[in-house]
């Protein structure tokens, strides 16, 4: 599976508010930033990388408490058969933005 599927899934949830690596300057919440950033437990066989596992993150920035987008992201990832886990939520007291983070892996 190509990890670009992550981008396509997210674009269906909030079109035009999905960014790769970094949000555009002045972007208003809610918005999503996704990135591939490391390698997971890649399978090696015959001295080669037989099954490469790409790991990355999805970050949702929102000002809405109990934002339904969070559930929509999880449902969409489940339906696409993508391995992921929720890595936590963080509240920025200065900006009042809630930051949800997921880690995903695509082989």
């Amino acid at each position: 599976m190509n990890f670009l599927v992550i981008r396509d899934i997210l674009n269906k949830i909030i079109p035009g508010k999905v960014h790769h690596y970094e949000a555009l300057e002045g972007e208003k919440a809610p918005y999503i930033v996704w990135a591939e950033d490391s390698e997971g437990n890649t399978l090696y066989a015959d001295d080669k990388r037989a099954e490469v596992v790409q790991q990355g993150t999805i970050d949702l920035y929102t000002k809405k408490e109990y934002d339904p987008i969070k559930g929509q992201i999880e449902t969409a990832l489940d339906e696409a058969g993508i391995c992921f886990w929720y890595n936590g939520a963080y509240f920025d007291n200065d900006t009042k933005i809630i930051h949800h983070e997921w880690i995903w892996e695509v082989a």
Partner: protein
Amino acid sequence: MARMTIKAGDEYMTKLSYAGTGASAISKKAIFEGARIVADAIREAIKNLPEDRFRLLQKGEKFSGVPKEHKQALLDGLGIMRISEDKNGDYMTRIGWEGYAGPKTASKKYPKGLPTALIARSINKGSIVRRKIPFVRKALNEVKETVIKAMDEVINRELEKLMKR
């Protein structure tokens, strides 16, 4: 904080059951060995973080690295928590940060200086003024297999010692 769970399989539990009252000590030794390797990997990852100088940011600008003093504070504040047993009988520890980055980073909000845990979090998760660098997760990915092997070796070695008695 990143989390890594290593579940002992039935084989280990059977082996450890032979150890009787020694099982607790062996589990703790194995966990400490695993935690030591993880902490060392995180320490290396901190050293390899890109450096940036602390300054007043222009509009839209973000820090893409870490000031030297913050790196030092992260190295000094990194530690392994005492290994404990939870209500389910599982042994666990945490690797994290304590302390502050010193008076140079003090502000009205943080009179003792920036908490090192806050610095670590802002680097790992990113913030309005900082690009995220998930150095803890990357360090864990790199050493996970090594940790499992090392813990395995500790358990086998300690069990052998017990059997020889």
